[in-house]
């Protein structure tokens, strides 16, 4: 499994995503640029923003989301803006302005609605806003959200749509996991102590019926999207920054490492900067992939389960195409069930 190393960012990665077909990868970074890459060979397709970019972000890009048709890109950044981009041209189509940084964005299933989470800072509460996206005239967007959820308790750090776009699932700084009704904006379900530390990532299963969260409390957990019931726990020995569920095979991938602050004082080995593969059903670690020399900040998996990519504090993205043996392996041994994973 020889990785393709994507070198194009000057600072650490914040979020990476595959497009629906898995041929492109979008990477957001603290250097205020979003890059698009061909996943097959690691060639850079283009950038969104940048030093000379027109209408680019002017600060850390915290989050990036691509629609399922690979037409539009949504980004959120520390310059208190959220932007809509046309992928084919790299042009910024629209900019929303906020009072605080945008920490997370996500498209719904139908590609017609997005969510954004703004940071809690300088007296401003953390707010989740839902916007309708005008796909026909993309430069004409409304700045009035259809729903606003102002969070009074612990701020939300990550969020995800449920399969039918009726609800969103959020992960909070306190370790809480909650479920909000998109129409009413009300919290319909929550677990206060889902994790004992900040939730750093939330990613859905291929069909969205369950999701995985990663946390600074060094565990990743799988929850039922419907009931928020905890299904599986994966305890590791390092703070986790990201987790994703591999389609086709019964694995999950976890990434993390020592806090960025204390990285310089520890050896690469002590930092535990590997991606970890765990068996989703048996809750057993099955393997590790080394390579980064900083903590892994973000993980993404190819929607068809053919590859995965990791973006790290070291500024590199590593795309790994799975070997034949990965698909031939028998993760259930002799049990060989008809598991739909």
């Amino acid at each position: 499994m020889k990785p393709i190393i994507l070198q194009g960012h000057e600072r650490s990665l914040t979020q990476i995503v595959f497009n629906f077909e898995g041929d492109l990868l979008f990477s957001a970074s603290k250097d205020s640029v979003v890059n698009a890459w061909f996943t097959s060979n690691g060639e850079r397709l283009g950038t969104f923003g940048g030093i000379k970019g027109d209408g680019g972000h002017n600060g850390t890009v915290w989050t990036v989301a691509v629609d399922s048709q690979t037409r539009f890109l949504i980004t959120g950044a520390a310059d208190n803006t959220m932007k809509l981009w046309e992928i084919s041209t790299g042009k910024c189509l629209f900019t929303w302005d906020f009072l605080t940084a945008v920490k997370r964005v996500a498209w719904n299933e139908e590609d017609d609605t997005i969510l954004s989470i703004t940071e809690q800072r300088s007296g401003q509460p953390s707010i989740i806003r839902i916007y309708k996206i005008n796909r026909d005239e993309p430069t004409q967007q409304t700045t009035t959200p259809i729903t606003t959820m102002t969070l009074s308790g612990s701020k939300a750090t990550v969020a995800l749509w449920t399969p039918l776009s009726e609800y969103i699932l959020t992960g909070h700084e306190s370790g809480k996991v909650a479920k909000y009704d998109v129409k009413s904006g009300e919290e319909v379900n929550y677990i206060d102590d889902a994790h004992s530390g900040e939730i750093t990532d939330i990613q859905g299963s291929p069909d969205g019926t369950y999701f995985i969260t990663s946390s600074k409390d060094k565990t990743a957990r799988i929850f039922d999207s419907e009931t928020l019931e905890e299904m599986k726990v994966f305890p590791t020995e390092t703070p986790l920054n990201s987790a994703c569920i591999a389609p086709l095979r019964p694995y999950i991938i976890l990434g993390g490492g020592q806090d960025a602050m204390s990285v310089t004082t520890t050896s690469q080995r002590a930092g535990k900067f590997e991606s970890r593969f765990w068996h989703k059903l048996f809750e057993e670690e099955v393997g590790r992939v080394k390579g980064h020399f900083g903590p892994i900040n973000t993980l993404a998996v190819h929607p068809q389960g053919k590859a995965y990519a990791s973006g790290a504090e070291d500024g590199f993205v590593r795309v790994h195409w799975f070997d034949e043996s990965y698909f031939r392996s028998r993760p259930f041994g002799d049990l060989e069930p008809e598991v739909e994973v």
Partner: protein
Amino acid sequence: MSEIEKIDGFTEEEQLDFEAELQEGFTEIEERYAVDTQQGFENVLVMDNIPVIDESKKQKLIDRLRQLFAKAGAPIEEENISMPWDDKAATNKGFIFLTYPDAQQAENALRALDGASFGKSTLYVNRFGDIERYANLPVGEGELPTGWREKPYVEKDHLRSWLGDSAGRDQYLTFRDQDVSIWWNGRNGTAEPVKVDGKPLKNNKWGELYLQWSPLGTYLSSLHRVGVALWSGPKLDGTIGVNVLRFTHPGVRLIQFSPCENYLVTWSEEPLDNFENSPNAALRETFGPEDEGNQFVIWDIKAQRVLRTFPADKPIQGEDGPQQVAWPSFKWSPDDAYIAKCNVGTGIAVYELPGMGLMDKKSIKIEGVQNFEWCPMSEKDFAARKAGKGKECSFVYWTPEAQNQPARVSIMSIPSRNILRAKNLFNVTDCKFYWQNQGDFLCVKVDRHARKAKSKKATFCNLELFRVREKDYPVEVIEFKDYVPQFAWEPQGSRFAIVSSNDPNYGQGIPGVVVKYNIDFYQLDQKKGDFIPIKHLDSKIANTLVWSPRGRHIVLATIGSSQKFDVEFWDLDFVVDERRETSEPGANVTMLASGEHYGITDIAWDPSGRYLTTHASSWRSSPEPGFCIWDFKGQQLVHQPMDRFKQFLWRPRPPTLLSKDQIKKVRKELKEFSRTFDEEDAAEENRGSAEKLAQRQRDISEWNAWRARNNKKLEERRSELGKAKKVVKEDHKDDERVEEIVEEMIDETEEVVVG
């Protein structure tokens, strides 16, 4: 009442009245004529335990008794002796009344006659009033005497049941975050949770501070903010006061068991308060006003009571930095008979158990004494002690140089206080004592400084080796030019290993510098009777020596370094060819294997010497907490990194009950024995994998059921909302496009690889 006879001439009514009157009247009469036994009988004594005789001997007995009384100075007339008679048995009732003329004479007689012997029996004399008083104590009417507490008898669960494991496995305890688990250590590192009634043994109270096994493994002690709890029995739980013993000591931090598990020493950072008015009954009853301000408590474990409390040592003056407690402060003799404490500079206080009184009512005065250590006892010594023979206990202590007086190491026997052996030493900075665990040898490691050096910083080292079992305790001296930071006797053996270093970086604590050590093995030469070096290992990085509890095997480990985490397994009797007798003593010292445990902070052998664990505790801020289990050959069986891992403890075992002959027999018929065990092992292995398989099967079916349920729900909701199934929609696209791309990708990837 209807039984009462009908009296003529009375109506029924009158009769009822009469009856009522009678009822009342009796109590009144009874009260009025009640005999007050406490007054007016001061001159009457009751004598118990006199021989039971029949009529024929009555006169003779009375005569003999009168003789005795007269002799004792309390003569009595015959008519004043009253002997109650049992008519049925035609004998006396075994006691007599003695009526003296007045109370004074009765008192005199009581003192003179009580406990007097009459023939073979002892006579007991009591005041008549006392007998009545104590016989009529208001018992059973809810008015129990103060201090009495109802305690139903509860049978103790077997304290050593874990030794009865059919596979002879050892137990160990792991402590992670707040969770404490106890495991059976199976073959090749397979662990099985210790179960009670089918459920893994769990107790959420254990995770409060830290845990410790008692020296023979009987009790698990858990420390809490309010005190210590000892847990025993197969469940390590049970009735309080029976299988769970509690010792209240607020703020307790350190505990120490006596070697035979009879007593316990606890130390708290907080001095005891005056608990007289404490709302906590346990504190009020446990400690008295005289315990106020004390920090050490000595407990009797079985009686669950305080034997004595002691104040803390005065802090050592002059040294800056946080004050450190020298633990153990109190040291137990190996037979639990004495506990001693060194009062630095003045003497050693030896207390006798269980009374906890100072031996001979005064401590042993030893000018300048710095430290001492009890001599351990072997099984043989214990057996000899039981048979009434055997030596006294003894300890070794040292005193530093004073004016015109050399430093001196002495061995003193207790309780006789004889000096068994003393040796003078010069230019001494510090002494450390190392007893071989059977008490056969003693090594005094003497850190010495140059003769005319201004600072008393130790620069080199002597080993003074006492052969304690031989006559006059012969001493051999081995001189070193280097520091010797580690010394270790082979348990049950006559070999020892030392770590020495002449590395200039030693003791400097420079980060990133790996200090080099030399390791030497010595052996007692049976013919000459002195210790000779058998193997020298140069430039090692290992700084810790851990002998197997059975001897022969030793592990050299690097602990406390930030770069090196080596673990080396050595065998001192490794024989390749059984037939060839090697003449050189050190030829069989062989390294079996070496490994590495990243972040290691502690190392421990299991009680049988078959397994070794290395663990990394988050308390010592290890970069990777967790533990490893190795077999004695150095093969790693388990590597378990665990976040927030704190403690790993093997459960100790009491000494074997097999006699020497039985052990010999086992050795001889090892092949026979091992065959049955091999079979069991094979069966075990099969069962283990079957269990795992079943567990996985369960996991899978649960997962399937859950997924099926969820998918159905999703589909239903989807059709309700009239939304198209996204998966299908996308699948179309996939089929066309993705396949194409995949082909391209493979080609391109290959180019990249070639390029």
